[in-house]
């Protein structure tokens, strides 16, 4: 395994985590706005 691929292999996971975190946080704020507009609780 070359240096490039080893680095890629180790760092791809935090990059993916960041992407998923972004999607979830965006989803959370959308849930919050939708609940506010509908005048109901989020949970």
């Amino acid at each position, binding site marked *: 395994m070359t240096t490039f691929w080893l680095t890629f292999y*180790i760092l791809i996971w935090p990059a993916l985590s960041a992407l998923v975190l972004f999607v*979830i946080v965006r989803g959370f704020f959308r849930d919050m706005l939708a609940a506010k507009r509908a005048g109901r609780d989020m949970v």
Partner: protein
Amino acid sequence: MASPYYQFTTTTTLLLLLVFYGGTFLMSLLVRQKNENVDGYMVSSGQVGFGISAASMTATWIWAASFYAAASSAYTYGLSGAIHYGFWGALMILFIYPFGQRFRKLAPNAHTLGELMHARHGSSSQLILALSNVLGSSISLMVNFTAAGAVVSILSPLSFVHGVVIAGIGTLAYTFWSGFRASILTDVAQLIALMGVAVIIIPWVMFSAGGPEVMAQGLERLTAEQADFFSTTAILEQGAPFFVAVLAYAIGNQTIAQRLFAVRQDLIKPTFLTATLGYGAVVIGLGMIGLMALLLGVQPDGGDLNNIIPQMASAYLPPFMIGLFFLLVVASLSSTADADLTALSAIMMTDVYAKNIAKGRADPRKMLLIGRLTMIVATMVGLILASFALDILVMLVFVGALWGTVVFPVIASCYWPRVTNSAFTWAVLGGMLLFTIVRFELLPMTGVIGLGFEMIAAVGAGVVAGLMCFGFFGRIAGLAAGLIATMVSAWYFAGFLNGYTVLLASLVAYGASTIICVALSLMSQEHFDFNLIAQRVQRFQEEDAQPAGNGPVAVPQPSPAE
């Protein structure tokens, strides 16, 4: 000899814990209601949005043991080690969603999976599921509180018991009043902390330890097996047993079922897809710290592989980042512990009280009281088990087997109208018996006996492959995959699998329960009408129906006999 761990002062440790548990408690106050709705206490509104559901599912599935074990696996098996922990765990979240959609369609108002089985079969199959979850969630509570004790005792002057007690009381405090609603809301903050910290510390450790060049030089330290991305040893000793175990864990688990019944029905798929990616990325990523330790030649303190992550954090992170790492561990264990508390309370409220004691005349106020008392008792049990560091290996083995034996009967009961209550019950009991014989080597696994068990295990492997294909591609594909996997496994396992007792026993649990369930179902004349389940599984309390002075209004519950 100097300690390999960074040490916080007592004040800093207490402040960190106060910030975490104080913050989550304050957050739980945002959703607190004076008169909690009993259905909301167990599954919220059943209309929870994508963001909260995905966050909650991911946070619940990631517990402290996840990344400790992923790092241990990477340290032991090399390049593929973390994958053989994190990938299979993630795949199981994906595997559940088609079945989750079916559970939800059959019983849109359910609170527990046991409740669905009660409507389908009656009490015995329901109570089997309830028992497996009570044992499983109690163990999970103990493991998470133990992880709190371990991290506190390693990184601070406080003792193990201090950590256990603070985590127990802290988790109970924010979950007690609003139950599941508090659990899923606080999961959002816990997941942001957990993932945010993971995103930062993985590259930080790598560059702080010397960067890519140093890591690449460390490849020379790996054995041939560790350097092989397709290592057979890693597959047979780590990947396959974990894959089989986690499949069982996923299907029968109430913490997951509860989230399935809470999320808006059309959002089940995106929620579980996101949680699959999130779990895989975080757990495999933190597992990379174990790989880096191997590449750097780090020796685990005291030979205990669980020490690798705290050791690496202490060696390569600045104090502020170690504080964030500390919060990561506390967030991951607390999010799972609060899910276990709410799962246990829902089981006692629904499966024990409403379905088997009140029998259709459940009083919502009494249910809430039972739920809250359950949380207190469960926390105390978790604290006692963790504080005394009791040996629970045997209990753990049996719970794993119990979950393995329920996988096929639960799924078959939701699709095949001929499955009966006795087929379900005898399948579980028979599977448990044969599992025990193999796991504890009560018979010599050689000759004809060994071959017989290997053939049952081949059926078990076929069941795993068949169910996975069935969930995504339908009945024909599932049957074909199951048959092919059984035949290939039978050829491969003969005279070979008896050398891998754990894997053999796990697969026997699946195979035996399936064979018994299918045989007894084929002998029955039952043709169950699945529409009855939705009629039998109802909410317990009318929405917003609390006339002054009269208390909450209970919804009459039809029983399976009606």
